[in-house]
């Protein structure tokens, strides 16, 4: 009974996150629009490159494969995006964190459930967009989607979300040391998107780039899930990838725990 009660408080937080996402739906729609502009740019970019190269394949991608990658990568990047870093920083800087420290609730779990609640609706919408896009291409015989691929994608994307949450959380804990970090977050965000393959597929940079990025967590945020979906990786590689995702999740959890413990000693609970 006690355990159930303890879980219930976090479900309540999840509900708050969900309500929040409904309340601020215009913000989400505008955000979604913003991820279409890069797609338009990529469309013209690749059309120009392919018509002038005179070959059927560039970097081992056909024209349609490249466009499919660009669109899927943009949507997946949107799906795994996080925007709570500023809130964490504010809580640390302005002393809002104190409220969670005196109540029997964990700030980390509060953030996870709140994130999950806010993501729920958005993730479903993006997922439907992805499926709609793939269905359109399947009808045109450019790609084949199987049920097992789709299910594996759902698993991989959930782990990618978890991993992205942990990375962002670890980054926002910087607030204990640096007071003004919005610019830093922006820079980190852009770099993360690029090295996770959110704009160009990583393999166009060569085999070395792929093998290096395979050992980094970012590879598993966008590039890997997209390739699961478009069938570029085999089942064996998918399972190996899932294991690496899990390993990174554990590593980041331990890292955050350590970082938080030393950061808390610096917390000054300003204001009030």
């Amino acid at each position, binding site marked *: 009974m006690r355990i159930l009660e303890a879980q219930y408080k976090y479900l309540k937080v999840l509900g708050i996150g969900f309500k929040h996402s409904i309340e601020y739906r215009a913000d989400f729609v505008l955000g979604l629009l913003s991820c279409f502009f890069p797609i338009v740019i990529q469309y013209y970019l690749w059309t120009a490159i392919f018509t002038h190269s005179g070959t059927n394949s560039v970097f081992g991608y056909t024209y349609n494969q490249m466009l499919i990658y660009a669109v899927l990568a943009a949507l997946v990047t949107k799906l795994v995006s996080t925007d709570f870093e500023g809130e964490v920083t504010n809580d640390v800087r302005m002393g809002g964190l104190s*409220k969670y420290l*005196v*109540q*029997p*609730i964990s700030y980390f779990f509060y953030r996870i459930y709140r994130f999950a609640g806010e993501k729920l609706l958005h993730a479903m919408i993006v997922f439907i967009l992805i499926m709609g896009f793939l269905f359109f291409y399947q009808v045109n015989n450019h790609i084949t989607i199987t049920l097992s691929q789709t299910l594996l994608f759902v698993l991989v994307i959930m782990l990618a979300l978890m991993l992205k949450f942990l990375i962002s959380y670890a980054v926002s804990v910087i607030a204990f040391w640096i007071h003004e970090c919005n610019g830093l977050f922006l820079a980190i965000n852009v770099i993360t998107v690029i090295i996770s393959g959110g704009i160009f597929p990583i393999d166009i940079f060569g085999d070395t780039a792929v093998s290096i990025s395979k050992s980094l967590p970012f590879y598993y945020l966008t590039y890997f899930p997209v390739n699961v979906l478009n069938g570029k990786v085999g089942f064996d590689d998918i399972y190996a990838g899932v294991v690496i995702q899990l390993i990174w999740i554990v590593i980041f959890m331990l890292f955050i725990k350590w970082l938080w413990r030393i950061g808390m000693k610096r917390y000054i609970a300003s204001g*009030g």
Partner: protein
Amino acid sequence: MAIIQVNNLCKSFNYYKKEAGLKNSLKNLFYRKTLVKEAVKNISFEIEEGEIVGFLGPNGAGKTTTLKMLSGILYPTSGDATVMGYVPWERKKKFKRKFSIVMGQKSQLWWDLPANESLHLNKHIYEISNKDYHTSMEELAELLDVKDLLNVQVRRLSLGERMKMELIASLLHRPKVIFLDEPTIGLDIISQKKIRKFMKYYNEQTKTTIILTSHYMNDIEDLCKRSLIINQGSIVFDGEIKKVNELFEQKKIIKLQLEDYVEKDVLGGFGTVKQYDGYNVLLEVDKRELKECSKAILDDLPVIDFNVEDIPIEEGIELLYKKKGSVDRIVEKAY
């Protein structure tokens, strides 16, 4: 055993000094001098179960910092403390379920939610059973007279109404110890009175231990049998607030109204002149000489009105605030 025990608690903060101007900003990029502010210096005290104790002191004296350490928000730099047998900054869940802190300037409610939803969330956070929740809610909402405000969004409540909600939120789980950090700040006199009355009643009914900080003398005089006055991080007084003046030389104030103009020098012969305009005079005299002095004044001066008063408490406290050094001596005297 005392419910709250504090031994030699210290807290210092590091900070940097920066002079104004672009040149100094650039200089600061390369070299910054770290300065240390000792917010709390070697504080020790004990509080028994059921007591209401007031913390008094000027801004920046260390009252809030002390409360933050006692509620586990801040780690101390050195020293130790226990609250109900727990070390606060270990932040044990069991400990958190037994106390609460209300900060007048920092809301713990959820601004986007109506008050009752915010309270309902607290029910789950503190894992309160349905039955207990409803009884407490009924009782507290009745006592504080906010029954019809419960479904209003928190951000739309007035300051006084919000403060009452904060109190309800902090009392739902029936804490044994409550820290109130300036609970009446910014409230009008009637709201202040209501909250004071409520706290007094609540303490009498439940024997909850309360520590309260405030700038308002009324809060302290009404509620607290015992007060700790903190100045510059140290306790300079511990006892009943009315006895503050006993710390100082035993002085009395004589208030005079005179029929004719009297020179200041003449009055100086009777005691220290505190206020003077020729006809109305405040004289400070030694308590032991009060009798002779009064006699002399009445005999020698053209007195219309004559009053003997104590030095006001505020003035005594002000003297304590201003006093630097030789603090230990004063504390000894208070016991």
